[in-house]
C-alpha cells in the first residue's frame, strides 16, 4: 500500500525524471487512474501495460521517434516515460484521442510534458487544447471537482474502476442500474395496490408515501450501477469473494437510502433482490452471454445467494424474515434469491407476459403479475405484520381474484376494493411488490439479451 508521503515524493521524483528527459524531445508520461491506496494491484499493472502498447502503436502510426523509454513500478503504481520528437500540442491531442476512444482509456493518465519554463516543466492540459476537462469515473461532472470534494464513496469509485478495467462500458452499467431504478419506480407508481404505497394512498404505511419511495429509488441508482460493475469485474472470482464485495456495497447503499428517506426503510428488500440480480446479470454480460441471459443470470444469482441463506439459517438476525423462518420455516427474500428468483421467474414473468399479450396494457399486466405473485408468494412482510393468518388471508383473497380472471377495469376495482381490509389488518405485501420489480427487471434483461443476440448475429 502506498502512503500519501510515498505518492507525493514519487510525483516530485517523476517530475525530475521528466525534466531530465526533456533534452530528448517532449515527454510522454503514462500513469494509471487508481484512486485507492493499493496503487500497484494487478488491475493497475494490466491497465498500464495496455496504455503503453497503445502509445507505442500511436507513435509508430505517426512515424514519430521514441527515445529514452523507461518504465518504473513500486507502491505508487506502474508508470512509463519516454521522449518523442514531435510538437507537444500534437502529441497531447493524439493522446487525448486515445484516452477518449480506447476502451480502457478512461483509466489512463497520458500526460505530455514540455518546457521547461523558468526551471519548471509544463504539463499540457486538455484546457490548453480548448477541450472539456475529464469526466468523473462515476458521474457526469468534472473529474477534478469530484475528486477534490470526495463526492463519491470509495466503493463506487472502486466498482467503476474495476468494471472499466474488466471491459464493462460505463454506458452499459448505467443502463442496467437505470433499469433497476425504473423497476422500483414502476412498482411504486402502479395504482391501486392494496396495503402498499401507491399514487393515491400510503396503504398500511404511516411513514411513507410515493414521493419518499421515488426519492429512495433515485438515491439507489449509483449503487445499482456498482452492483452490475462488480458482478462483471468479479465474474470469474469465487462466490464468497464477490459476495463480500456486494455486502459492502449493499450496506453502504442501505445507509444512503436511510439518509435519503430520513431513516425510513423503503427499499431494503428490493435493494437486496435487485442488487443481486444486477450483479448476476453483470457477471453473465462479462461472458458475452446473450442467449438464455435470464436463465444464466438466475443460475448465477442462485449460486451467489445460497451462501447467504446457509449463513443466515445458522445465525438468524433480528429481521422480520428471521422470525418467519423460526415460526413458519419460511425463507423469504433470501430463499427466493437462492432459488434464482423462482417465484418471480415462474409465476410473475409468465403472468406479466401473457396478460401483456392479451390486453396490450403494461400497467394492467403489472397489476395482474402482482395478483399472481400475491397468490403464490410466502410473503414474510405479511407474516411480520399479520402472522400466518395475515399471509393466508392475502393469498386466499388473491387466489379468488386470479380465478375470477377479471378484465382490466374489473381488476382495478378488485384491487381498490381490497384496500380497506388490508389497511384494517395493517397488511402490506411488500415482498410480493419486490418480486414484481424483479419480474419487470427479468423481462427487461431478456429484452437486452435478445437485442445483444440479434446485434451479434
Amino acid at each position: 500500500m502506498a502512503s500519501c508521503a510515498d505518492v507525493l515524493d514519487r510525483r516530485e521524483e517523476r517530475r525530475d525524471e521528466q525534466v531530465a528527459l526533456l533534452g530528448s524531445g517532449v515527454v510522454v508520461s503514462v500513469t494509471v487512474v487508481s484512486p485507492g491506496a493499493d496503487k500497484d494491484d494487478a488491475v493497475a499493472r494490466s491497465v498500464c501495460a495496455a496504455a503503453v502498447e497503445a502509445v507505442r502503436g500511436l507513435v509508430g502510426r505517426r512515424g514519430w521517434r521514441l527515445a529514452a523509454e523507461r518504465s518504473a513500478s513500486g507502491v505508487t503504481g506502474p508508470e512509463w516515460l519516454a521522449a518523442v520528437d514531435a510538437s507537444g500540442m500534437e502529441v497531447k491531442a493524439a493522446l487525448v484521442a486515445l484516452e477518449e476512444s480506447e476502451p480502457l482509456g478512461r483509466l489512463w493518465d497520458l500526460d505530455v510534458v514540455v518546457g521547461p519554463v523558468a526551471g519548471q516543466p509544463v504539463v499540457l492540459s486538455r484546457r490548453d487544447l480548448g477541450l472539456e476537462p475529464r469526466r468523473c469515473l462515476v458521474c457526469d461532472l468534472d473529474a477534478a471537482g469530484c475528486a477534490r470534494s470526495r463526492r463519491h464513496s470509495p466503493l463506487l469509485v472502486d466498482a467503476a474502476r474495476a468494471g472499466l478495467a474488466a471491459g464493462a462500458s460505463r454506458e452499459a452499467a448505467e443502463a442496467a442500474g437505470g433499469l433497476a431504478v425504473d423497476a422500483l419506480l414502476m412498482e411504486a407508481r402502479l395504482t391501486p395496490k392494496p396495503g402498499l404505497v401507491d399514487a393515491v394512498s400510503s396503504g398500511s404505511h404511516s411513514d411513507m408515501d410515493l414521493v419518499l419511495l421515488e426519492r429512495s429509488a433515485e438515491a439507489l441508482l449509483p449503487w445499482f450501477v456498482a452492483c452490475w460493475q462488480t458482478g462483471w469485474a468479479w465474474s470469474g472470482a469465487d462466490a464468497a469473494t464477490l459476495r463480500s464485495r456486494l455486502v459492502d456495497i449493499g450496506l453502504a447503499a442501505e445507509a444512503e437510502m436511510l439518509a435519503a428517506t430520513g431513516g425510513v426503510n423503503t427499499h431494503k428488500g428490493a435493494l437486496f433482490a435487485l442488487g443481486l440480480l444486477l450483479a448476476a446479470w453483470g457477471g453473465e454480460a462479462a461472458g458475452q452471454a446473450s442467449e438464455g441471459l435470464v436463465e444464466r443470470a438466475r443460475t448465477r444469482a442462485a449460486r451467489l445467494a445460497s451462501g447467504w441463506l446457509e449463513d443466515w439459517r445458522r445465525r438468524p438476525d433480528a429481521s422480520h424474515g428471521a422470525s418467519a423462518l423460526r415460526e413458519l420455516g419460511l425463507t423469504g427474500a433470501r430463499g427466493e434469491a437462492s432459488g434464482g428468483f423462482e417465484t418471480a421467474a415462474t409465476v410473475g414473468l409468465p403472468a406479466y407476459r401473457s396478460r401483456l399479450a392479451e390486453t396490450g396494457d403494461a400497467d394492467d399486466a403489472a397489476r395482474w403479475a402482482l395478483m399472481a405473485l400475491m397468490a403464490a408468494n410466502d410473503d414474510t412482510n405479511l407474516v411480520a405484520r399479520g402472522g400466518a393468518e395475515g399471509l393466508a388471508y392475502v393469498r386466499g383473497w388473491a387466489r379468488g381474484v386470479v380465478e375470477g380472471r377479471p378484465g382490466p377495469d374489473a381488476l382495478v376495482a378488485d384491487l381498490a376494493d381490497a384496500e380497506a381490509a388490508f389497511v384494517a389488518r395493517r397488511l402490506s405485501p411488500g415482498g410480493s411488490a419486490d418480486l414484481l420489480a424483479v419480474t419487470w427487471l427479468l423481462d427487461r434483461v431478456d429484452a437486452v439479451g435478445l437485442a445483444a443476440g440479434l446485434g451479434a448475429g
Partner: protein
Amino acid sequence: MRIEVDAVAGTLESSDALVRVSPAEELRIEVTSTVEAQFGAEIRRTVAEQLDRLGVTEGLISVQDKGALDFVIRARVQGAVLRGAQARPDWRKL
C-alpha cells in the same frame, strides 16, 4: 519561518499542486486552480492557514492547483516554505 531563497514543492500532475515561494517584504498569496469556481475560496483559506501555522508573515507564495485535496495543498505549502527557509523537509512528518 522566513523565506530566504526561491523554492518549489509539488508538481502539475492532476490532484497535485505546484507551490513556489520567493523572498518578499510583504506576504502575497497568488492562487490559480483548475477547480477555481467550486473551491477557490477554500484553497485560499487552506493556504493562508498553513502559512499562518508555519509563522510565515512575508514572502511571495504562488500556488498552481490541479485539484489537490486539502492535505496535499498543506503538505506542498509546507514543503516549499521549508525549502525556501532552507530547512530540510521530511514528508513523513507532515
